[in-house]
């Protein structure tokens, strides 16, 4: 714990250890950075499947299953977002 009972960051790097902000980039360049990050990540994942499986058909099957798992994981979160939450007793106090 920090002084005064405050918590240290656990889900993201503490400010003093965080990577540089991208706020100095133009909005379009920030979006482009994300798109290229997705390309790079996809390449890692796809190459992993290619090393694991012998045929292109097996790779494509693995890709399809991976995408299906991702969708199955993210869809409930999107439904939670759409539903919203009802106010709780004492909430906001």
């Amino acid at each position: 714990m920090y002084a005064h009972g405050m918590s240290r960051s656990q889900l993201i790097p503490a400010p003093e250890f965080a990577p540089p902000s991208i706020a100095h980039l133009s909005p379009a360049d920030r979006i482009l950075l994300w798109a290229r990050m997705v390309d790079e990540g996809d390449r890692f994942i796809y190459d992993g499947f290619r090393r694991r499986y012998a045929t292109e058909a097996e790779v494509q099957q693995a890709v399809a299953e991976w995408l299906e798992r991702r969708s199955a994981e993210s869809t409930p979160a999107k439904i939670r977002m759409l539903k919203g939450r009802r106010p709780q007793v004492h909430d906001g106090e």
Partner: protein
Amino acid sequence: MASEGVLATLRAGWEALDGISALKAVIGGLALSAWNHARYTRDADVLVAIPVDQVDRLVAALAAAGFHPRHSPPLRVIETQGIIQFTFQPPGSLMPFQLDVLLAETAFQQDALVRAVPRPLPGDEGEVMVVRPDDLLVIKLLAGRIIDRADAAMVLRENRDSIDFDRLHRVIAEQGLSEDYRATWLEAYPSEPVPDLS
């Protein structure tokens, strides 16, 4: 060479949805990066205020643009919430992308669409509407996964000057997210006391 397939997916989907008379805004990975937090997420999500009786038109427009509904019928109603999921294979991409169209029904969602701001797409290829950072933060807290909470903290940290905190704190209370927000605040600003939300 990079294919930027996720951008191609959003561009094609946005153009198709432009033919539908409805408020809409991007809320997925593009919105995160527009608000200074780029991470690996393939989520291409669009929040759309469209009556259920016009969903067929929406599906037809996206199908004409090369999007394939993942389900039959395309509209899934899960716990009373409507979601339409498509797959799209942009040229040159290693893997297909999923475009999720989320039907906005609550007052918060409708407000978020009204408050959305335009952001240019790379390469002078038009612009899309993006929900504002405070609305994105609420959306992330409602989604509720660990990764969503981390996203919320980064959006809070990276957009302090762009957030309407009075409105944000009111919405946080209305949505019953005060405890989540307090934790998010301490993630974003560990050395600062949490604002009074009362």
